[in-house]
Protein backbone atom coordinates (compact mmCIF):
# COMPACT_ATOMS: atom_id res chain seq x y z
CA UNK A 1 0.00 0.00 0.00
CA UNK A 2 2.62 2.42 1.13
CA UNK A 3 4.80 1.94 -1.92
CA UNK A 4 1.90 2.38 -4.31
CA UNK A 5 1.05 5.64 -2.69
CA UNK A 6 4.67 6.76 -2.92
CA UNK A 7 4.74 5.98 -6.60
CA UNK A 8 1.70 8.05 -7.35
CA UNK A 9 3.17 10.93 -5.34
CA UNK A 10 6.29 10.86 -7.42
CA UNK A 11 4.29 10.87 -10.62
CA UNK A 12 2.36 13.93 -9.57
CA UNK A 13 5.49 15.55 -8.24
CA UNK A 14 7.31 15.19 -11.50
CA UNK A 15 5.35 17.96 -13.07
CA UNK A 16 6.11 21.55 -12.30
CA UNK A 17 3.95 24.36 -13.53
CA UNK A 18 4.75 27.91 -12.45
CA UNK A 19 1.72 29.30 -14.31
CA UNK A 20 -0.50 27.77 -11.66
CA UNK A 21 1.59 28.55 -8.61
CA UNK A 22 -0.25 31.68 -7.55
CA UNK A 23 -3.73 30.19 -7.82
CA UNK A 24 -2.73 26.90 -6.19
CA UNK A 25 -0.27 27.87 -3.46
CA UNK A 26 -0.21 31.63 -2.80
CA UNK A 27 -2.88 31.54 -0.08
CA UNK A 28 -1.37 28.52 1.62
CA UNK A 29 2.14 29.98 1.61
CA UNK A 30 0.87 33.33 2.84
CA UNK A 31 -0.97 31.68 5.74
CA UNK A 32 2.12 29.64 6.53
CA UNK A 33 4.23 32.78 6.66
CA UNK A 34 1.80 34.94 8.60
CA UNK A 35 1.34 32.31 11.30
CA UNK A 36 5.08 32.37 11.90
CA UNK A 37 6.04 36.01 11.63
CA UNK A 38 2.86 38.01 12.26
CA UNK A 39 3.69 40.79 9.81
CA UNK A 40 1.42 41.04 6.76
CA UNK A 41 3.72 43.05 4.58
CA UNK A 42 6.72 40.89 5.31
CA UNK A 43 4.64 37.75 4.73
CA UNK A 44 3.57 39.03 1.30
CA UNK A 45 7.17 39.82 0.41
CA UNK A 46 8.31 36.39 1.50
CA UNK A 47 5.69 34.69 -0.69
CA UNK A 48 6.87 36.70 -3.67
CA UNK A 49 10.53 35.97 -2.92
CA UNK A 50 9.68 32.29 -2.59
CA UNK A 51 8.14 32.16 -6.06
CA UNK A 52 11.03 34.08 -7.60
CA UNK A 53 13.63 31.88 -5.90
CA UNK A 54 11.72 28.81 -7.04
CA UNK A 55 11.73 30.04 -10.65
CA UNK A 56 15.48 30.41 -10.52
CA UNK A 57 15.90 26.95 -9.07
CA UNK A 58 13.36 25.18 -11.26
CA UNK A 59 16.04 23.08 -12.95
CA UNK A 60 17.03 21.74 -9.54
CA UNK A 61 13.51 20.51 -8.79
CA UNK A 62 13.88 16.76 -8.83
CA UNK A 63 10.26 15.83 -8.42
CA UNK A 64 10.95 13.78 -5.32
CA UNK A 65 8.62 15.93 -3.29
CA UNK A 66 5.43 17.63 -4.38
CA UNK A 67 5.51 21.15 -5.78
CA UNK A 68 3.79 22.33 -2.62
CA UNK A 69 6.35 20.73 -0.30
CA UNK A 70 9.18 22.12 -2.37
CA UNK A 71 7.81 25.68 -2.31
CA UNK A 72 7.08 25.43 1.42
CA UNK A 73 10.66 24.35 2.09
CA UNK A 74 11.96 27.42 0.24
CA UNK A 75 9.61 29.67 2.21
CA UNK A 76 10.63 28.02 5.47
CA UNK A 77 14.27 28.82 4.84
CA UNK A 78 13.35 32.42 4.18
CA UNK A 79 11.45 32.59 7.45
CA UNK A 80 14.41 31.19 9.36
CA UNK A 81 16.53 33.90 7.73
CA UNK A 82 14.10 36.47 9.11
CA UNK A 83 14.36 34.92 12.57
CA UNK A 84 18.15 35.04 12.34
CA UNK A 85 18.19 38.62 11.17
CA UNK A 86 15.80 39.65 13.91
CA UNK A 87 17.89 37.93 16.54
CA UNK A 88 21.13 39.51 15.42
CA UNK A 89 19.43 42.91 15.34
CA UNK A 90 17.85 42.54 18.73
CA UNK A 91 21.12 41.29 20.16
CA UNK A 92 22.38 44.80 19.62
CA UNK A 93 19.43 46.70 20.96
CA UNK A 94 18.28 47.04 24.48
CA UNK A 95 15.36 44.64 24.56
CA UNK A 96 17.66 41.66 24.95
CA UNK A 97 19.59 43.35 27.73
CA UNK A 98 16.39 44.40 29.34
CA UNK A 99 14.86 40.95 29.08
CA UNK A 100 17.98 39.43 30.59
CA UNK A 101 17.99 41.99 33.32
CA UNK A 102 14.38 41.26 34.15
CA UNK A 103 15.04 37.56 34.20
CA UNK A 104 17.99 37.89 36.55
CA UNK A 105 15.77 39.89 38.79
CA UNK A 106 13.19 37.11 39.04
CA UNK A 107 15.29 35.25 41.60
CA UNK A 108 17.30 36.17 44.67
CA UNK A 109 20.96 36.08 43.70
CA UNK A 110 21.97 34.14 46.80
CA UNK A 111 19.62 31.18 47.10
CA UNK A 112 17.71 31.30 43.79
CA UNK A 113 14.31 31.77 45.42
CA UNK A 114 11.62 33.84 43.72
CA UNK A 115 11.86 37.49 44.61
CA UNK A 116 8.73 38.53 46.45
CA UNK A 117 7.55 40.85 43.65
CA UNK A 118 8.03 38.17 41.00
CA UNK A 119 6.35 35.24 42.68
CA UNK A 120 3.89 33.52 40.36
CA UNK A 121 0.27 34.25 41.12
CA UNK A 122 -2.73 32.43 39.69
CA UNK A 123 -4.18 33.92 36.51
CA UNK A 124 -7.61 32.75 37.55
CA UNK A 125 -8.27 31.07 34.22
CA UNK A 126 -6.28 27.89 34.85
CA UNK A 127 -9.45 25.84 35.13
CA UNK A 128 -11.42 27.38 32.28
CA UNK A 129 -11.24 26.31 28.70
CA UNK A 130 -8.68 28.94 27.84
CA UNK A 131 -9.40 29.36 24.14
CA UNK A 132 -12.72 30.80 25.22
CA UNK A 133 -10.90 33.75 26.63
CA UNK A 134 -10.07 35.92 23.64
CA UNK A 135 -8.62 38.72 25.70
CA UNK A 136 -6.14 36.40 27.33
CA UNK A 137 -5.07 35.04 23.94
CA UNK A 138 -4.48 38.57 22.67
CA UNK A 139 -2.26 39.37 25.62
CA UNK A 140 -0.38 36.13 25.07
CA UNK A 141 0.24 37.12 21.45
CA UNK A 142 1.47 40.56 22.47
CA UNK A 143 3.76 39.08 25.08
CA UNK A 144 5.13 36.60 22.57
CA UNK A 145 6.12 39.37 20.22
CA UNK A 146 7.81 41.28 22.98
CA UNK A 147 10.38 38.52 23.34
CA UNK A 148 13.79 39.10 21.76
CA UNK A 149 13.87 37.75 18.18
CA UNK A 150 16.00 34.70 18.83
CA UNK A 151 13.94 33.68 21.85
CA UNK A 152 10.74 34.00 19.86
CA UNK A 153 12.26 31.91 17.08
CA UNK A 154 13.31 29.16 19.50
CA UNK A 155 9.98 29.23 21.30
CA UNK A 156 7.95 29.16 18.08
CA UNK A 157 9.92 26.36 16.50
CA UNK A 158 9.78 24.23 19.65
CA UNK A 159 6.37 24.82 21.16
CA UNK A 160 4.35 25.80 18.12
CA UNK A 161 5.95 23.77 15.35
CA UNK A 162 7.12 20.83 17.46
CA UNK A 163 10.47 20.70 15.74
CA UNK A 164 13.24 18.46 17.09
CA UNK A 165 15.70 20.28 19.33
CA UNK A 166 18.72 19.35 17.19
CA UNK A 167 17.05 20.79 14.07
CA UNK A 168 16.32 24.08 15.85
CA UNK A 169 19.88 24.32 17.13
CA UNK A 170 21.38 23.79 13.72
CA UNK A 171 18.96 26.05 11.88
CA UNK A 172 19.34 28.94 14.32
CA UNK A 173 22.98 28.21 15.05
CA UNK A 174 22.64 27.97 18.82
CA UNK A 175 24.40 25.42 21.01
CA UNK A 176 22.27 22.90 22.92
CA UNK A 177 23.12 24.52 26.25
CA UNK A 178 22.12 27.91 24.86
CA UNK A 179 18.92 26.36 23.61
CA UNK A 180 17.96 25.33 27.13
CA UNK A 181 18.86 28.71 28.57
CA UNK A 182 16.69 30.43 25.95
CA UNK A 183 13.75 28.05 26.50
CA UNK A 184 13.91 28.77 30.22
CA UNK A 185 14.30 32.53 29.91
CA UNK A 186 11.64 32.85 27.24
CA UNK A 187 9.09 31.12 29.44
CA UNK A 188 10.00 33.13 32.54
CA UNK A 189 9.55 36.34 30.58
CA UNK A 190 6.39 35.24 28.85
CA UNK A 191 4.78 34.17 32.10
CA UNK A 192 5.83 37.36 33.88
CA UNK A 193 4.45 39.44 31.01
CA UNK A 194 1.11 37.62 31.27
CA UNK A 195 0.99 38.14 35.02
CA UNK A 196 1.77 41.82 34.62
CA UNK A 197 -0.79 42.46 31.88
CA UNK A 198 -3.56 40.12 32.88
CA UNK A 199 -3.96 40.22 36.63
Amino acid at each position, binding site marked *: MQSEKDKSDVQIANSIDPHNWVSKYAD*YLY*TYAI*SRIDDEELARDLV*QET*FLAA*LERMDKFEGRSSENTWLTAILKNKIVDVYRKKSSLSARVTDLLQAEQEQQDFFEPGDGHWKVTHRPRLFGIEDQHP*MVNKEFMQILQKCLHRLPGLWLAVFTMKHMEDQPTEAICSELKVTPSNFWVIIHRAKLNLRACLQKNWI
Partner: protein
Amino acid sequence: MNKLKKISYNCKQATFLIEKKQITKLTFREKIELRIHLAGCSFCRIFERQSILINHLAHQLFSTAQNAEGKLDENVKKELQNRIEKELKK
Protein backbone atom coordinates in the same frame (compact mmCIF):
# COMPACT_ATOMS: atom_id res chain seq x y z
CA MET B 1 24.73 16.80 50.79
CA ASN B 2 24.56 20.48 51.40
CA LYS B 3 24.78 21.08 47.67
CA LEU B 4 21.91 18.72 46.85
CA LYS B 5 19.80 20.43 49.46
CA LYS B 6 20.58 23.79 47.98
CA ILE B 7 19.58 22.71 44.46
CA SER B 8 16.40 21.11 45.71
CA TYR B 9 15.24 24.37 47.17
CA ASN B 10 16.32 26.61 44.31
CA CYS B 11 13.40 28.05 42.29
CA LYS B 12 15.63 29.07 39.40
CA GLN B 13 16.78 25.49 38.95
CA ALA B 14 13.29 24.11 39.52
CA THR B 15 11.73 26.31 36.82
CA PHE B 16 14.49 25.24 34.48
CA LEU B 17 13.66 21.58 35.13
CA ILE B 18 9.96 22.31 34.61
CA GLU B 19 10.77 23.62 31.13
CA LYS B 20 13.11 20.76 30.37
CA LYS B 21 10.54 18.20 31.44
CA GLN B 22 8.06 19.44 28.85
CA ILE B 23 10.52 18.89 26.03
CA THR B 24 12.60 15.90 27.02
CA LYS B 25 13.00 13.29 29.73
CA LEU B 26 14.59 14.32 32.98
CA THR B 27 17.32 12.21 34.52
CA PHE B 28 16.44 10.23 37.62
CA ARG B 29 18.27 12.69 39.81
CA GLU B 30 16.53 15.66 38.19
CA LYS B 31 13.13 14.05 38.69
CA ILE B 32 13.81 13.58 42.39
CA GLU B 33 15.12 17.11 42.77
CA LEU B 34 12.08 18.58 41.09
CA ARG B 35 9.65 16.47 43.05
CA ILE B 36 11.20 17.46 46.36
CA HIS B 37 11.19 21.09 45.34
CA LEU B 38 7.59 21.15 44.15
CA ALA B 39 6.39 19.43 47.29
CA GLY B 40 7.58 22.40 49.30
CA CYS B 41 7.15 25.34 46.92
CA SER B 42 3.68 26.58 46.02
CA PHE B 43 5.06 29.29 43.72
CA CYS B 44 6.81 26.81 41.50
CA ARG B 45 3.69 24.65 41.48
CA ILE B 46 1.80 27.64 40.06
CA PHE B 47 4.62 28.23 37.63
CA GLU B 48 4.43 24.66 36.38
CA ARG B 49 0.69 24.81 35.88
CA GLN B 50 0.95 28.07 33.99
CA SER B 51 3.92 26.96 31.95
CA ILE B 52 2.01 23.93 30.69
CA LEU B 53 -0.99 26.16 29.99
CA ILE B 54 1.13 28.65 28.02
CA ASN B 55 2.62 25.91 25.84
CA HIS B 56 -0.83 24.55 25.21
CA LEU B 57 -2.24 27.96 24.28
CA ALA B 58 0.72 28.84 22.08
CA HIS B 59 0.18 25.61 20.22
CA GLN B 60 -3.49 26.46 19.74
CA LEU B 61 -2.66 29.97 18.62
CA PHE B 62 -0.39 28.54 16.00
CA SER B 63 -2.77 25.93 14.65
CA THR B 64 -5.61 28.44 14.52
CA ALA B 65 -3.46 30.75 12.44
CA GLN B 66 -2.45 27.79 10.33
CA ASN B 67 -6.04 26.81 9.59
CA ALA B 68 -7.26 30.33 8.99
CA GLU B 69 -8.48 31.18 5.52
CA GLY B 70 -5.70 32.54 3.36
CA LYS B 71 -6.38 36.20 2.87
CA LEU B 72 -3.82 37.20 0.32
CA ASP B 73 -5.26 40.16 -1.53
CA GLU B 74 -6.46 39.46 -5.09
CA ASN B 75 -4.54 42.42 -6.46
CA VAL B 76 -1.37 41.17 -4.83
CA LYS B 77 -1.99 37.82 -6.44
CA LYS B 78 -2.42 39.41 -9.86
CA GLU B 79 0.82 41.26 -9.45
CA LEU B 80 2.53 38.07 -8.41
CA GLN B 81 1.15 36.25 -11.41
CA ASN B 82 2.37 39.01 -13.76
CA ARG B 83 5.78 38.94 -12.18
CA ILE B 84 6.05 35.18 -12.65
CA GLU B 85 4.89 35.35 -16.28
CA LYS B 86 7.47 38.04 -16.94
CA GLU B 87 10.24 35.96 -15.39
CA LEU B 88 9.19 32.93 -17.43
CA LYS B 89 9.49 34.87 -20.70
CA LYS B 90 13.07 35.90 -19.93
